């Protein structure tokens, strides 16, 4: 496949069957390999779409400064694009994110502002919103509320899944900014409403939820619960267990959040088997495991890995 530039090569990712993890020929699992995007994650779709829209709207011109709260992948995608398009990028990152993510951001020239560990990405959002007020000329793309994020999946990820798997019955993806699920969900609600849209969200250690007040929680502005059918909270133990199963049985090396997504997908598969129903379950592989090696999730016992992930923003 040939493209004019790296930026043009986003999307059109492979969909691979998982014959050894699938419970039966009638209940099959399929992995959408979003780690095959230019910077190695599903966030390339949203990041490039948000930049393209901001350019179209006249908000971004070469030399502009982009500001974004991110736990990593969106920042990395923006950093690559910013480098190619001559933008300055300032990322607000929770301090309890993996060192690999920081190195990658710096490598592409992004500036990093650390937000306090307690509160996780909620704090990063709060800090970035404060900085946006101080620097009125900076452009905050704001992945949590930018419709271009969900649109990238409405026009890209959703149609790609349907084209490769017309018999799809379930789509399972991670819930962070909610962009993937909102875009894919809206596409299937309009095109093939029988498809069940399932969300998997990471459940972190207590430090990440250490907010002062329960009313200070955060729900992304993009989130519309009517576009999904069920939502599961998956802790680090199940996520790590599934990451290792995927490696052992199918040879796929994925990031920890994908383990959480697979856990929810296998839950849907078990339900289908029990109900004696056919199912073709597609789940999104958000990224590969490379950026998380230093977390310790891939070595030692599952108990060890679970302990090491305590307090980290691992998704």
């Amino acid at each position, binding site marked *: 496949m040939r493209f004019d530039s790296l930026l043009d090569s986003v999307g059109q990712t492979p969909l691979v069957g998982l014959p050894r993890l699938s419970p039966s020929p009638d209940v099959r699992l399929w992995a959408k390999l979003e780690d095959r995007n230019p910077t190695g994650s599903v966030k390339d779709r949203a990041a490039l779409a948000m930049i393209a829209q901001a350019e179209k709207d006249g908000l971004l011109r070469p030399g502009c400064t982009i500001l974004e709260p991110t736990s990593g992948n969106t920042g990395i995608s923006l950093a690559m694009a910013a480098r190619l398009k001559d933008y300055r990028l300032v990322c607000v990152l929770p301090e309890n994110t993996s060192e690999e993510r920081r190195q990658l951001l710096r490598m592409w020239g992004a500036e990093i502002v650390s937000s306090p560990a307690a509160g996780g990405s*909620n704090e990063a959002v709060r800090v970035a919103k404060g900085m946006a007020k101080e620097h009125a000329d900076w452009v905050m793309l704001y992945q949590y509320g930018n419709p271009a994020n969900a649109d990238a999946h409405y026009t890209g990820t959703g149609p790609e899944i349907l084209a490769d798997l017309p018999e799809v019955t379930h789509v399972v993806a*991670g819930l962070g*900014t909610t*962009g993937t699920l909102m875009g894919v969900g809206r596409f299937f609600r309009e095109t093939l409403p029988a498809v069940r849209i399932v969300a998997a969200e990471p459940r*972190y250690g207590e430090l990440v*939820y250490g907010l002062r007040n329960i009313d200070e929680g955060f729900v992304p502005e993009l989130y519309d619960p009517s576009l999904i059918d069920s939502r599961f909270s998956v802790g680090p133990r199940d996520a790590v267990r599934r990451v290792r199963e995927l490696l052992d049985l199918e040879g796929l090396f994925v990031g920890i959040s994908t383990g959480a997504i697979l856990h929810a997908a296998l839950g849907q598969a078990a339900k289908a088997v029990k109900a004696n129903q056919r199912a073709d379950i597609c789940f999104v592989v958000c990224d590969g495991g490379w950026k998380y090696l230093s977390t310790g999730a891939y070595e030692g016992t599952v108990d060890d890995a679970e302990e090491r992930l305590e307090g980290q923003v691992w998704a």
Partner: protein
Amino acid sequence: MAVEVKVPTILRTYTSGDKAVPGSGGTLGEVFDDLDSRHPGIKERVVDGGDLRRFVNVYVNDEDVRFTGGLDTSLSDGDTVVILPAVAGG
């Protein structure tokens, strides 16, 4: 039905610091009433009128109750109820 309720850090002032407390009830709403009888004030932090508060998520056996009937979600013996503040990802 006897269930276990996991309480987030910020609500442990109501449970004398306990991370998990026992609860009982046939539905989630009944469990919150039961909890409030022993830990007065906790229900109001989670429930507003007849609904869950916007920035609170509640899961029964890891499934978000907003998709299973909300406060009417029925419970079985041994179920685990988890209360968490909503957090961002990305």
